[in-house]
């Protein structure tokens, strides 16, 4: 086989493209007149207008590398008439709105399975995250009636809140958060003080109208004049009803600060979740810890790569050099794929990538061992190289396919953490096959054509005795 100029050109183009993408942050800095070091402004974006191509190019770091909070929420107690996936989608939309309105732009809210929601908040600690998501889930409106609470009510509500007024018990008005279509912070035009406006759907509007008409008949100061809003078990608002409220919207006033009005509006909105949301799992990683992990992993990667290159050079000599160059091209291509397709790099993912370096070397080792054998058998360099690649191929193919099968199983059935590992390992294996079969082979063919490269000692083989 001869050197294939077209294949060689393809390797060159891919390598240059890969290096361009790997170094794109610097290109972007120069293009936008930013200094080459220090924090970068904006997101590096490559756009080629006449091809309609626009792609953000940067390393998407997982929360474990970046620091932040990862939450897995579960929806339970879905109200009748709503399917669990519908409830999940409504909840995703509500949580998304809430997270975005809190100004966390790079956050992720997405459904997972039938009844789960994953929320990722970079740079946010767990306490902040809980506040953003609200501790709330189910909102109900109650009225106070003379009597004492029965055991069932005390079970359903916080006993301290349910027994707030001696001689009075809370009675459910049948109005709950599902009837609230929207709640927002507003300002009282007369006093200029913050208050909260809520809008009801038609059913809620009718119930609320009847409820308030009945309540205003009681004098102010009497618990029976009050409207009690419970969220989950807790009393969050116990307001006087001044007039009957019909027409679908109500205003809650009374001693709010801007922040507390905002907080109540968020809680009321969350009350319209069509089910109860519980925290199934949470992970929080400190920002410095993430950065340290990245540094250590990169250091390990660089260290590992150097040892591998050193080993290849010492053991396989000239082909080792070829393999090392192929390996560097391999690393550049894999990194470029991660950046270009927005693969999220997690700790497990980095480990998968570093492991795939080892597997990339394996393909080369297989070829070189075969090459040595063929040379010892007395073949010419060109023929030995061709036979080496040819005979190593079934082993490379079968072993890599079995690794890809494992990646496939991990990706489709594994937990999110495992998925990241599977993706980077699969990309690594795929690129390593290209690296071994195309890159290494072409480079070897070039060597075979160079006179000084024909000394067998360069391949770690003694010249065979003349037969």
């Amino acid at each position, binding site marked *: 086989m001869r050197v294939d100029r077209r294949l060689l050109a393809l390797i060159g183009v891919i390598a240059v493209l890969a290096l361009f993408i790997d170094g794109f942050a610097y290109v972007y800095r120069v293009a936008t007149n930013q200094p080459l070091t220090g924090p970068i402004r904006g997101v590096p974006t490559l756009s080629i207008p006449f091809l309609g191509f626009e792609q953000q190019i940067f390393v998407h770091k997982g929360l474990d590398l970046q*620091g932040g909070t990862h939450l*897995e929420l*579960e929806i339970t107690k879905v109200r009748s008439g709503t399917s669990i996936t519908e409830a999940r989608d409504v909840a995703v939309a509500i949580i998304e709105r809430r997270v975005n309105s809190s100004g966390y732009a790079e956050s992720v809210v997405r459904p997972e399975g039938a009844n789960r929601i994953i929320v990722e908040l970079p740079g946010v600690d767990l306490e902040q995250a*809980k506040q953003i998501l609200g501790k709330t889930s189910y909102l109900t409106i109650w009225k106070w009636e003379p009597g004492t609470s029965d055991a069932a009510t005390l079970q359903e509500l916080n006993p301290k809140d349910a027994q707030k007024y001696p001689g009075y018990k809370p009675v459910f008005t049948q109005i709950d958060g599902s009837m609230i279509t929207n709640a927002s912070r507003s300002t009282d035009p007369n006093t200029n003080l913050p208050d909260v406006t809520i809008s009801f759907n038609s059913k809620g509007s009718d119930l609320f109208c009847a409820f308030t008409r009945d309540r205003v008949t009681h004098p102010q100061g009497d618990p029976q004049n009050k409207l009690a809003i419970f969220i989950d078990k807790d009393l969050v608002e116990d307001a006087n009803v001044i007039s009957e409220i019909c027409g679908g919207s109500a205003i809650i006033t009374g001693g709010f600060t801007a922040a507390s009005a905002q907080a109540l509006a968020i809680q009321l909105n969350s009350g319209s979740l069509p089910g109860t949301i*519980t*925290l*199934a*799992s*949470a*992970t*929080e990683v*400190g920002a*410095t*810890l993430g950065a*340290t*992990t990245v540094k*250590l*992993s990169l250091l*390990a990667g660089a*260290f*590992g790569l150097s*040892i*591998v290159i050193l*080993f*290849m050079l010492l*053991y396989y000599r000239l082909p080792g050099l070829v393999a090392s160059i192929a390996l560097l091209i391999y690393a550049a291509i894999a990194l470029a794929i991660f950046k270009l397709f927005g693969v999220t790099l997690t*700790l*497990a993912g980095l*480990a998968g990538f*570093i*492991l795939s*370096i*080892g*597997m990339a*070397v*394996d393909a080369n*080792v*297989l070829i070189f*061992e075969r090459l040595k054998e063929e040379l010892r058998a007395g073949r010419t360099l060109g023929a030995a190289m061709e036979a080496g690649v040819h*005979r190593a191929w*079934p*082993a490379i193919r*079968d*072993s*890599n396919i*079995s*690794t890809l*099968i*494992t*990646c*496939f*199983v*991990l990706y489709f*059935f*594994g*937990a999110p*953490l*495992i998925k990241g*590992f599977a993706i980077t*390992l699969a990309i690594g294996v795929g690129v390593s096959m290209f690296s071994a079969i195309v890159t290494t082979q072409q480079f070897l063919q070039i060597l075979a054509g160079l006179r000084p490269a024909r000394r067998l000692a360069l391949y770690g083989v003694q010249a065979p005795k003349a037969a």
Partner: protein
Amino acid sequence: MNIVGRRNWYFLLSLAIILPGIVSMAFLGFRLGIDFAGGDQYNLAFTQPVQASAVQKEMDTFNVEAIVQQAGPDGVLVTTKPLASAQETTIRADLAKKFPLDPSRSSYAQVGPTIARELVVGAGGLVVIASILIVIYLSIRFNYKFAIAAVLALLHDVFVLTGIWSILGKVFNSPLGEINTLFVTAALTVIGFSVHDTIVIFDRIRENLRQASRLTFEQNVNLSIIQSLARSLNTSMTVIFVLVALFLISPTNIKGFTLALLIGIVSGTYSSIFNASPLLVVWRRLDPR
């Protein structure tokens, strides 16, 4: 070198490593991480050295079945039963008040019981599905005897790894020996690598069998092992170099992961040379078709 001829010694060595692990798994079980057991885990870093015992004493006052272990001079690992959200907040505030906590280097994880149950089912299932698919693929490429021998070698590695983990976690009570999602990832990688290694040798056997020769099946297998020995050792050495580098400098949260990969890869290399191919010979003797 006659590897196949001394196969019984190599099988014996494998057993000697696996048996204590199986005994430990059967009687002591595993040290389950919160991914599997459910619960809360704090990985706390401090700005000054802090003794685990001091943190343990503080945690005991909350009565949450806390286990505190030292992780480096200025860090501890705290594991508790699943905490309610409010309780978690209280404990954290208390720890921040009593110890020189560095929040930016700390991490925290909570796993609820439902997720934990799913993971246990999921992890076992993954190993089974991956094994079945690999058997199918190898049956097509080689034949079913090769496929089953490869999977037996794979199970060998899974048992070596899980057995050592059981001993590490339960006998030595080391946080390294914790079964968590990362461990499952490591185990699955080892499966991939083990098969990878075995296939390379099988490929050689397949090739040598195709060439007419006067060698017996047993001699042929032995020759194939010797022929691919340099490659097996070289590849494993390069991967082991990378892993040792990773292990030495990895932070506590992934040390267990890299150690599991390291053990698994060593075991995978051993099993493909000394178990998988000799098994073919044993099978051939029992069933000489």
